[in-house]
């Protein structure tokens, strides 16, 4: 009698354990496949009681062919089913099904501890491997950063040290040209001209190297001030317009229709204008026109430089602003450059909180755009700007339209060159 009582007590304790605490699934399913009783573990997996629901609906059945009779009578082999869970990640349980006396079915499912252990050891191994890889990667990154800093330093020192002898070449070739005009033959004077031109070209390239090494070293400091865009643009275009006139190219500036002040570093932004114009000039021929325009939106002012050069394919447009990339049709020998001009443009514009892009079709010239924020970007930015989210082509189209809509009479293009 005592043994019987003890056995009943053990049964009761085991049932309580299975129903309330154990990490196994215990379900009673009726003849129509509905769940009549569940244990706490099943409720925890489902995120609530599943009593009254179909058992088939609790498992992932890709083929929609679940039939519980296939798994009866009870087999020694468990059946694998993936149980849906409330957090969306299914879990695998191995089920045994037992038919009860009243035609109901007891389903008991448990996880495979061996599989879980295998997964754990694989994940620990992978985690160790990835940690070691990350360590190696960080070491390589640190070494590359040191190398990059050395490269920038070398760039700067080399450019600086070459400048000194170059100044001597420039100075004495100019001196010879002015002081010995009478004594030199015309071909000798022509040679002197080549020396001077080459020295000037090399000086431009060195200046680009110096600028770029400063930018790359993260030492670009902007001295920004509120600037009236109209006189500033006219001044900024002047140096390039002199070069253009020598080449027989006309630079046309559309007068801006807005007296807004822009918060910019005038010297650096003038470099942007000159680099863009220099680039346009490189690919222009005598008789061509380069058009400089300004467009206005509520949030940005956009400067565009349009040339009549050979144009740029869509694939090549993507790489234009990378350093040392020359994707245009070849410029003339005398107009070789460092390959840094557009990269410098991008660095300066980005430092102003602006953006730069190009639109072009092969054979139809190219238009470079520089968009600068109307407000100082040092002010904390708000949410995502809708203007910026639209396609860049659309921005330019909208801006064009806006510029025309805003003025009763579209302003006539005006050349900055003396007529």
């Amino acid at each position, binding site marked *: 009698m005592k043994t019987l009582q003890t056995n009943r007590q053990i049964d009761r304790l085991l049932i309580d354990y299975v129903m309330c605490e154990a990490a196994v699934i215990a379900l009673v399913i009726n003849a129509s496949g509905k769940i009549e009783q569940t244990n706490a573990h099943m409720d925890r997996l489902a995120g609530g009681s599943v009593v009254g629901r179909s058992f088939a609906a609790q498992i992932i059945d*890709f*083929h929609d062919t679940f039939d519980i009779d296939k798994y009866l009578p009870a087999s020694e082999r468990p*059946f*694998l*089913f*993936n149980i849906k869970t409330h957090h*969306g*990640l*299914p*879990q*695998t349980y191995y089920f045994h099904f037992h038919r009860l006396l009243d035609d109901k079915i007891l389903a008991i499912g448990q996880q*495979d501890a061996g*599989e*879980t252990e*295998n*997964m754990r050891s*694989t*994940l620990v*191994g*992978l985690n160790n*491997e*990835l940690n070691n*890889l990350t360590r190696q990667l960080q070491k390589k990154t640190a070494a590359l950063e040191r190398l990059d800093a050395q490269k920038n330093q070398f760039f700067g020192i080399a450019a600086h040290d070459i400048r000194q002898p170059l100044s001597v070449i420039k100075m004495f070739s100019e001196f010879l040209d002015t002081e010995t005009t009478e004594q030199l033959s015309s071909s000798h004077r022509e040679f002197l001209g080549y020396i001077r031109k080459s020295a000037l070209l090399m000086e431009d390239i060195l200046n680009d190297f110096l600028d770029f090494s400063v930018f790359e070293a993260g030492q670009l400091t902007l001295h920004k001030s509120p600037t009236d865009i109209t006189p500033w643009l006219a001044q900024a275009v002047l140096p390039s317009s002199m070069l253009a006139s020598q080449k027989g190219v006309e630079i046309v500036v559309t007068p801006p229709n807005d007296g807004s002040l822009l918060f910019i570093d005038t010297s650096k932004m003038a470099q942007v204008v000159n680099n863009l114009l220099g680039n346009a000039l490189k690919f222009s021929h005598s008789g061509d026109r380069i058009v400089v325009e300004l467009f206005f939106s509520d949030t940005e002012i956009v400067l565009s430089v349009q040339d009549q050069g050979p144009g740029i394919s869509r*694939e*090549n*447009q*993507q*790489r234009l602003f*990378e350093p040392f990339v020359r994707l245009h049709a070849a410029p003339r020998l005398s107009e070789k450059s460092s390959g840094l001009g557009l990269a410098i443009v991008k660095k300066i514009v980005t430092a102003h909180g602006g953006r730069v892009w190009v639109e072009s079709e092969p054979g139809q010239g190219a238009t470079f755009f520089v968009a600068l924020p109307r407000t100082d970007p040092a002010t904390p930015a708000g949410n*995502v700007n*809708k203007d*910026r*989210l*639209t*396609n860049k*082509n*659309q921005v330019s189209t909208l801006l064009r339209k806006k510029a025309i809509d805003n003025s009763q009479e579209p302003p006539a293009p005006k050349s900055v060159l003396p007529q």
Partner: protein
Amino acid sequence: MVDEKVFALYLEALLKGNRSQCGQLVDRLLEADIDIKDLYTGLFQDSLYRVGELWENNTISVATEHVATAITEGLLSRLYPRIFAAEHCGKKAVISCVANEWHQIGGKMVADIFELNGWDTDFIGANTPVDDLVRHIDLVGPDVLGLSLSLYSNMEVLLQTIATIRSHFHELHIFCGGQAFRWGGLEKLRQITGTEYIPSLHVLEQTLVN
């Protein structure tokens, strides 16, 4: 191409969770100078498809499937020095999974195929909320957005994600792919302009090359 015998050995090791044997088989293929794209499609993709089928047929467990995926992801990282060495063409792609989608390896392999073809690719990963995706696209300005979907139950989330992205970026080209489309969703996807379905890594590769 991957030999059938090698594939069978690899799949067996993958299902047993034998990481070191999988690694050795891949190393042997690399030593034999197999094309990385063949390795991706003929070994990694096909073996994971097989793993997925076995899971769907209740032949293997979630744990086995996760181990197989984790082993494959680990092997992919061994190939990165080769993948990232490709000459870049200046184009950018963003690849992501939608919110609630935790299966990321398909998307990762798609990102790698883009890299192999010279694209700069950002792979954002599993379970990416749509707001984060919008911010990232705005930041990066990609030419293409790729969305990967493994579970059909997440199809509505995908379609909502595309609608949100489209409201911000009207002309961004979007393509989708993943095992979820075996169960439907193509009709709805085709109704959204500028959106394309790419059925496999092989088709993606062909599309990028052409």
